[in-house]
């Protein structure tokens, strides 16, 4: 049996931020990640981030990962990193988290406090032939292309014009892949307008109010797709178009990865705005299980910039719970972090997030008060 003060599950933007924040206040941290290397989605994000300077705006995701790795390196006396390690389950009876490292070593770890920063899973669409070789999720395309340098296809049809669909289309073009088009059910792109403008001016059509009906399969692999226009009420019309492509990429949303939180008995709520079941949390990102905190997409689907600030908030709050920081020192840093998070969520595009958070936050919007 191993012990640790703070266990952080997930080494993406939220988990890395949580680990370095907690360690910076003197906590001993174990950071586990199921992937071979830390960084989560950051290492696939070759585009520059939005937000403010404090959130690394104008810096590419892959560079932000490097900055966080450097912070982690500086805190290495306090942080144990276990990569290629999956947190398979939490056992409430003895408070043990079961870890499997390198697909062979079984580790029982008992943390005092746990931060769940497990991120999200991709949604997929049901349509005929969606199991054919050549149909991918956007995460897989990014992993192939940006992590392993594998060319995913010659001509891609993107399904979904949210930020992921728009950005991955742009990344594919940078890699020399042609984009046959981007299909979006809604009458407007869901991602930032400027991301759409970026691909439009390079000649990519965006088919608003369209949906994919099926993948065309020849010789066992994707050889095209049919897309269909829908009317104002989302009902299919007679207008069907054939698209030539050898790859179909789905970027139709994410679902919070919350299994460990369920196992820990955290009170979970289905919040459509946050894209799935998410834990009730207080202003410290602490769940209803007092030993479990949450940060990033596991607490509701949002941007990586918000995930990093949430990680920091959970990290400093755990340090406070462990008696490592208190009083004004805590208050000052904590309020600064909340201010940054509130700014990110303040505008129109944050309205959905704000509305979702009202359904799962068990304190008012004046977050600073409780500190």
């Amino acid at each position, binding site marked *: 049996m191993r012990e640790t003060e703070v266990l952080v599950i997930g080494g993406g933007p939220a988990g890395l931020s949580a680990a370095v924040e907690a360690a910076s206040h003197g906590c001993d941290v174990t950071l586990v990640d199921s992937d071979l290397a830390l960084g989560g989605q950051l290492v696939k994000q070759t585009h*520059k981030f*939005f937000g*403010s300077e404090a959130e690394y705006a*104008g810096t590419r995701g892959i560079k932000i990962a490097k900055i966080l790795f450097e912070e982690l390196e500086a805190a290495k006396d306090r942080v144990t990193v276990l990569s290629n390690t999956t947190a398979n389950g939490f056992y409430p009876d003895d408070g043990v988290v079961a870890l499997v490292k390198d697909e062979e070593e079984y580790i029982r770890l008992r943390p005092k406090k746990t931060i769940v920063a497990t991120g999200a899973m991709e949604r997929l669409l049901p349509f005929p032939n969606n199991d054919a070789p050549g149909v991918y999720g956007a995460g897989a395309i990014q992993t192939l292309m940006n992590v392993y340098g594998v060319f995913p296809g010659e001509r891609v049809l993107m399904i979904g014009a949210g930020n992921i669909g728009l950005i991955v289309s742009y990344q594919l*073009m940078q890699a020399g892949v042609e984009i046959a088009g981007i299909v979006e059910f809604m009458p407007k*792109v869901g991602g930032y*307008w400027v991301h759409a403008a970026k691909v439009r001016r390079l000649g990519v059509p965006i088919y608003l109010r369209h949906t994919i009906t099926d993948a065309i399969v020849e010789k066992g692999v994707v050889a095209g797709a049919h897309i269909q226009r829908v009317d104002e009420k989302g009902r299919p019309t007679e207008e069907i178009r054939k698209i030539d492509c050898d790859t179909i990429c789905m970027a139709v949303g994410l679902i919070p990865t919350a299994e460990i939180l369920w196992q820990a008995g955290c009170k979970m709520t289905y919040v459509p705005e946050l894209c799935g079941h998410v834990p009730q949390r207080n202003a410290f990102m602490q769940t209803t299980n007092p030993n479990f905190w949450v940060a990033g997409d596991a607490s509701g689907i949002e941007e990586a910039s918000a995930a990093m600030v949430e990680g920091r908030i959970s990290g400093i709050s755990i340090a406070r719970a462990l008696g490592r920081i208190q009083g004004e020192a805590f208050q000052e840093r904590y309020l600064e972090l909340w201010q940054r998070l509130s*700014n990110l969520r303040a*505008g129109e595009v944050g309205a959905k997030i704000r509305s979702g958070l009202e359904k799962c936050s068990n304190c008012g919007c004046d977050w600073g008060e409780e500190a």
Partner: protein
Amino acid sequence: MTEKELLFNSGVLTERCPGAELPPRELWEKKKNGLVVIECPQRIPCNPCASSCPTGAIRPFKDINDTPAIDYEKCIGCAKCVAQCPGLACFVVDLTYGEADEALVKLPFEMLPVPVEGTSVDCLNRVGEAVAKGKVLHVTEPLRDKTRVVHVVVPRDRVMDIRAVRVVK
């Protein structure tokens, strides 16, 4: 919903609006080095254009969700924002450059191959149609972060349309 609204909703600027305004013509005609033209009509949490502007021409944001507002008197056409903007939404248009029928556009570029100075490139409008040939004057990398700023000489009557270039194979 009209066709024009749908076009805008797909990421194509269809008319000038807050966050996507043009400089005053009189100042623009005589300003050496050009003036910034930003096409960022949606309120999103992002402010590097303003925080990186060396002269304060892009006015500091009150709220990070503000769309950019510009004091054109202060703009020196340095194109720092062109390199900095994560949305590739900043351009510099220099109407004083070259002959009477020419103008210079400084635009962001993140594709391969990188245009070569002195060569001819296809100039693309907001839906990717090649509307003119342009001559590459300079290619810079102001932030040394792989976002290039391409200075391209274009026909003056196309300067309001050209927002990208493509290397001719």
